[in-house]
């Protein structure tokens, strides 16, 4: 299982390194405006073709590049209902604090759990290779986080149940 995790993350890392060639590009339609073209999807000539990297049916990564911004959407592996609920709560917690992450999008793209939007201002202020590192590390860590959360939920449930039921034992 983890023998495909390494190649998957390497593939995402290499693709991101290629996709993060972004530059400042003022809006062509409106004067003095500067907007992330990948979010508006207006001009075909400014968008590169999106790349979808599926590890499995339930775990994939969509990278949509454009001339001045890149959108990365990740679908996290969710094996059962408990993991689905945990992922939903965890990603919503992170997305409410998207300001602190700077490159995080407040709403994920349809069909994915979490999305990042990296614009040319981000790549000017921060190192490109570090941005790539961050996204890949995030994808690796979120799996571990969800497993830990699931483990602690089960442990807590077991403890609470045994404490509660002790009142009924003679």
């Amino acid at each position, binding site marked *: 299982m983890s023998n495909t995790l390494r190649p998957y993350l390497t593939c995402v890392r*290499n693709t991101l*390194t290629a996709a993060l060639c972004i530059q400042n590009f003022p809006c062509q339609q409106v004067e003095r405006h500067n907007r992330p073209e990948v979010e508006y999807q207006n001009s075909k000539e400014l968008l590169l073709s999106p790349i979808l990297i599926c590890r*499995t049916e339930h775990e994939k990564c969509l990278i949509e590049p454009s001339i001045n911004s890149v959108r990365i959407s990740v679908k996290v592996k969710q094996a059962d209902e408990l993991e689905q609920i945990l992922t939903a709560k965890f990603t919503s917690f992170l997305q409410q604090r998207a300001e602190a992450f700077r490159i995080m999008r407040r709403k994920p793209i349809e069909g994915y759990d979490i999305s990042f939007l990296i614009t040319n201002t981000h790549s000017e202020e921060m190192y490109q290779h570090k941005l790539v590192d961050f996204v890949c590390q995030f994808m690796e860590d979120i799996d571990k986080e969800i497993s830990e959360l699931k483990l602690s939920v089960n442990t807590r449930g077991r403890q609470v149940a045994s404490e509660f039921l002790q009142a009924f034992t003679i």
Partner: protein
Amino acid sequence: MESCAHQIRQALDSAPSNTTEEQQAASFQRVKDSILKVRENDIDPLIATLTPGQVDLLMKYLYKGLAVPDAKLNAVLLLWHEKLTAVGGVGCIMRSLTNPLHHFLAPSN
């Protein structure tokens, strides 16, 4: 191994002449089948024999294959992707972003 290498090169060389949907799907299937036949140890020497144009084309096919959520095939494709990037570099990936298969009617070089 020689026959696998030859098959892949054939599949890649015949691709530019495909313009209809069925031809494209058929050539994609050919590339996928020949990729699955190659053993893990033979991938590196095989990639070393490809021309730059073929490397670019193979990368585009890999991405097309990775878009389909087939776990077993994708495990192989991800392995190929890693090895192909070592040879083709980030430029090869860049060319798949700018000149993908569905815009493809002539070789990118």
